């Protein structure tokens, strides 16, 4: 069970070349916009044809350039939730959902399933509404209902929350998580938002310029990024060149300091990443004198920028982020950081 994707496609100057595999559960495709994420989904759905490769879903070959197999989208049994939801504007909610049924069921079964899914999606009483008379969240639920009644073998979600207001987003993410758990089969989620990816995905594929950068379990990706790209996409604010001194010591030349680290370093260390909220006034580890250069107030915290005493002039200020409750009367003269919170990055 699960999906195996190995495809190549050329689009002008852009080259898509990805390979990944997923068992059941939610797999996130995380990457900046324009990196080819949506194109991957279109290839899996059969809307776009890859130049070469293979797509296999639960032992069923959807595409295989060597065997000349290319199933039409209609035969792939996939659920594809488009970014814009793609509800048919000329049909009401009920007609839209009826479009999702496969032909085999009789009218009575369809009616029953329709009532069930309307209830599941909290859309009772909305069945005669046209899509544009619904809120963004309701439109999303109609699109999901339309997909679910077809009983697909895979669900693909393309930036499902990007069209929603921020106050709705988190609430809908909780609902979506429950729904996907209930669905139980493989789900692909395309997003550029790391919070969304962290909340919903078991594993994450990082896509960069049409290729697979990193493929890791979500927790591992966020707490042991290992690559510069993973560190950036998971929101590390401080990334700086470093070199290995010994198994537990590294040097950051531009900051003019050495850090002790907990886990033994491997060869090939090129940089370290430090999350802005990992610096600490109380930590005794890696404690050095600092000079503050600026501050920014946020709703629930502060961002301070600072420099180490011997920091080189051309290197950037360092970010420190902390909640409002921990603001002291006087700015600290020194900051430390735990030896576990320095992420080594390798070539």
């Amino acid at each position, binding site marked *: 069970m699960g999906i195996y994707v190995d495809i190549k496609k050329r689009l002008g100057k852009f080259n898509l070349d990805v390979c990944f595999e997923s068992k059941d559960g939610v797999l996130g495709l995380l990457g900046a916009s324009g990196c080819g994420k949506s194109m991957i989904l*279109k290839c899996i*759905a*059969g*809307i776009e044809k890859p130049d070469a490769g293979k797509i296999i879903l639960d032992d069923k070959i959807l595409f295989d350039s060597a065997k000349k197999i290319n199933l*039409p*989208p*209609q*035969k*792939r*049994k*996939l*659920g*594809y939730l*488009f970014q*814009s939801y*793609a509800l*048919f*504007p*000329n049909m009401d909610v009920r007609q839209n959902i009826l*479009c*999702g049924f*496969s*032909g085999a069921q009789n009218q009575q079964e369809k009616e029953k399933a329709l009532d069930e899914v309307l209830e599941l999606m909290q859309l009772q009483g909305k069945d005669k509404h*046209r899509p*544009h*008379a619904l809120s963004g969240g309701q439109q999303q639920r109609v699109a999901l209902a*339309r*997909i679910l009644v*077809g009983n697909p073998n895979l669900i693909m979600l393309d930036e499902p929350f990007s069209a929603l207001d921020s106050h709705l987003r988190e609430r809908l993410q909780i609902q979506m998580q429950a729904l996907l758990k209930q669905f139980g089969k493989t789900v692909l989620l395309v997003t550029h938002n790391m919070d969304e990816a962290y909340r919903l995905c078991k594993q994450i594929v990082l896509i960069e310029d049409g290729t697979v950068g990193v493929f890791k379990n979500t927790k591992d990706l966020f707490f042991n990024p290992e690559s510069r790209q993973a560190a950036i996409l998971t929101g590390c604010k401080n990334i700086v060149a470093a070199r290995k001194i010994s198994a537990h010591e590294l040097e950051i030349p531009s900051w003019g300091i050495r850090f002790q680290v907990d886990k033994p370093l491997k060869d090939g260390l090129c940089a370290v990443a430090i999350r802005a909220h990992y610096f600490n006034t109380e930590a005794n580890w890696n404690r050095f004198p600092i000079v503050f250069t600026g501050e920014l107030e946020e709703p629930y915290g502060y961002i301070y920028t600072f420099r180490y005493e011997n920091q080189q002039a051309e290197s950037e200020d360092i970010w420190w982020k902390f909640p409002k409750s921990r603001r002291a009367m006087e700015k600290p003269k020194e900051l430390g950081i735990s030896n576990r919170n320095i992420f080594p990055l390798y070539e």
Partner: protein
Amino acid sequence: MDLFPLWNSLRIATLSAVIVFFIGIFAAYYVSKLRPFVKGVIDVILTLPLVLPPTVIGYFLLVTVGARRPLGMFLEQFGVRFVMTWQGGVLAAAVIAFPLMYRTARSGFESFDETLAYAGQTLGLSNRFIFWRIRMPACKQGIIAGLVLAFARALGEFGATSMLIGYTPGRTATIATTVFHLWQVNDEQGAFVWVMINLAISAVVLLAVNMIERKNGYLRRYQKEIREI
């Protein structure tokens, strides 16, 4: 008074509008999917009848389906004749009115959100269902506008029609050719009657268009209000 020209004009305009409706839609659909360069070339060819003088179209029609031309003789074997018949009037009006249907329908298809078709495909809907039940309704405005324009243009066709089918009272006379003929024979009063009839038909057509547009306009405003609540 002989009302034949009214009846003849209406049947020619209606039939040519129906023919142009289907051919125009399919041409628009396939051209909108072509690569830019090929599309540009074919688009020019299909739009030409709009900018050429109708007499030039009449010339082209006579040299293709004329009685002593190969295609004309071939069609004659099946009893199909376009020269000096009201069927020829349908052909001439259809060629002249075609670009109006084609162009309005094409701009409708080009503004269609292709994700709707993709969504239909992934849901397992047949391509025919997607075309008739999703694509066409979404482009309805442009298609209706094109159809009305094509009908109005066909109704007013004079140049190509008079070259291909001439003016025979009771057989090929249309309102436009009748007005011209009556003026030529100094029957100003007769011409005036047909001018008024033509004005009445055109006014009714335009009123109908406005009513359709207004209805859709109300609907849209109403839907916007619902969303704002």
